[in-house]
């Protein structure tokens, strides 16, 4: 007993100290590695934000650290959502803020100045397909039909050429980046939440519910499409990577990695690695994203599309 007590005491104290040290680390991260940018790249970087982009950044981060050139660099990736990513990068807690949407769309009004300080690095494109349960008998919808469905004007599949079945909307939360992409580029208008509509955040759950619920309609990133659901053509254009690249299929968005001001050496090396051909044609495609470099069109924050 005599020995145990002090040991316990020291243990707890050590834990408390370690915990408080952790807290400090997190806050100072941004500052500390912007100062030590010296010869053989060493340091650490923290990328926070979008869960849609997280798997890619994580996988590339692992590869980056495994590369002997960057052996001294520690890459940390965290989720938390696009809003969190933008908040933390503009607050300096994170080096990179991952976002599904342009920073200007999230940081509005009073925060508009913060958006101006951020530099956009578009690393990939995510395209979305409208999906429905397999029983609906519909494989193409026009833009107007979709607006009618998502605003509640059309409530039965037989009004859009399908079977007699009530339409069940599976939407995303109103703050979701996926939803704002869908509303902006597929519907062209913001829609209010319908009473009785289902809202889910995770794409896996959306797929499960759409696949199981008769008459369900939703939207999913291309990487989530499989046999359990029907992918619906948009104005007759099939949801395929080739159609996205040529700009024919409009429901897509950039995945952004934001830095506050010009990135330091470590962050820059990582971002360059991210857009290198090896990664863009390898990991990006493998994980179901579309390489930003392959796109034949570009789009700005206001949605204006221009041919490259």
């Amino acid at each position, binding site marked *: 007993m005599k020995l145990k007590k002090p040991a316990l005491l020291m243990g707890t104290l050590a834990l408390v100290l370690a915990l408080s040290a952790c807290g400090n680390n997190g806050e100072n991260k941004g500052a500390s590695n912007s100062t030590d940018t010296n010869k053989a790249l060493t340091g650490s970087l923290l990328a926070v934000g979008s869960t849609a982009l997280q798997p890619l950044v994580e996988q590339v981060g692992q590869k980056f650290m495994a590369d002997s050139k960057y052996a001294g660099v520690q890459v940390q990736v965290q989720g938390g959502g696009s*809003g969190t990513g933008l908040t933390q990068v503009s607050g300096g807690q994170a080096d990179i803020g991952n976002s599904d949407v342009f920073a200007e769309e999230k940081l509005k009004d009073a925060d508009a100045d913060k958006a101006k300080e951020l530099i956009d690095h578009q690393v990939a494109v995510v395209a979305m397909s409208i999906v429905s349960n397999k029983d609906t008998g519909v494989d193409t919808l026009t833009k107007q039909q979709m607006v009618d469905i998502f605003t509640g004007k059309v409530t039965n599949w037989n009004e859009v050429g399908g079977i007699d079945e009530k339409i069940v909307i599976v939407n995303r939360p109103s703050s979701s980046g996926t939803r704002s992409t869908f509303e902006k580029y597929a519907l062209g208008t913001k829609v209010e939440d319908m*009473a009785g509509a289902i809202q889910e955040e995770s794409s896996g759950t959306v797929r499960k519910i759409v696949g199981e619920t008769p008459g369900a309609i939703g939207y999913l990133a291309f990487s989530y499409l499989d046999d359990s659901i029907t992918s619906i053509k948009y104005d007759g254009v099939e949801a395929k990577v080739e159609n996205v690249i040529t700009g024919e299929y409009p429901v897509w968005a950039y995945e952004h990695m934001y830095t506050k001001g010009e990135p330091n050496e470590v962050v820059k090396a990582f971002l360059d690695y991210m857009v290198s051909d090896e990664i863009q044609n390898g990991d990006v495609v493998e994980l179901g994203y579309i390489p930003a470099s392959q796109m034949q069109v570009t789009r700005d924050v206001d949605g204006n599309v221009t041919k490259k």
Partner: protein
Amino acid sequence: MKSNNGSPVLIKKHHLEDWIGRIYTTFCVSLLVIIIVSMMYFVASKGLTTFIKDGVNVGDFLFGTKWDPNGDNPVFGALPFIAGSFATSLLAALIASPLSICAALFMNEIVPSWGKRLLQPVIELLAGIPSVVYGFVGLSVIVPLFRDIFPGQGIGIAAGALVLSVMILPTITSIASDALSSLPKGLKESSYALGATRWQTIYSVILPTVMPSLLTGVVLGMARAFGEALAVQMVIGNAPHVPRSLFESASTLTSVITLNMGNTVMGSVQNNALWSMALALMVMTFIFVIVVRLLERRHRL
């Protein structure tokens, strides 16, 4: 250390131990208090910003039925979420209380020999299952079942309450069981000695005596149901509307917070409104705690 030669050592070893112990425990206690107070301060300051800085009317927030934070004219009515939280946790308590009180009676009064040995591990297991597992089972089993039996898509308050009721079973059962087993033996025995049957004993002696503890269990169970986020979010549908039936998509305070917190930018009105809901949740927890304290006081008398 010499102790018996006239000049006593200034600090004796056991005194030192006492002091170290005292300082250490005081440190732990004050750390706890600081954590709780600072959390309260943080959530309250964030939550009140919505009303003070962003100019959202408290009444509109608490009783407004329209939640449209991203529209051209943002509206922040949290009633759908508050109503959803109350409906799910009340319904869950209604389903779970009779079950768990009967289970506790079975364990302690009816078959104390093997009942406790069998049920105790089961209840501990129930308490240990992670909430995401409950949610997933709910989504894969309860939702399709409800979809087939009742009109609607199966999701909604009914599915949420059923999942929650299983989650709060262990809480209510273990508190009820503790209360029953700590009952003075004399009470029961004198009732039997008067010729009362087991049912009469349970109904008119045991239950009235332990009622405050049973209610404490129910309230704590409700508090747990009120704060549960993940499992409910998976089966309730999350539409920001007051539902017209138990089988229509609805939301709770916790589900709307977890769905939107990560996607909104700190300091934006929508984010602050979410903090206000967190504040509402915390206030509710305090009310639950106060109710429990009142019940305990009644128990002591």
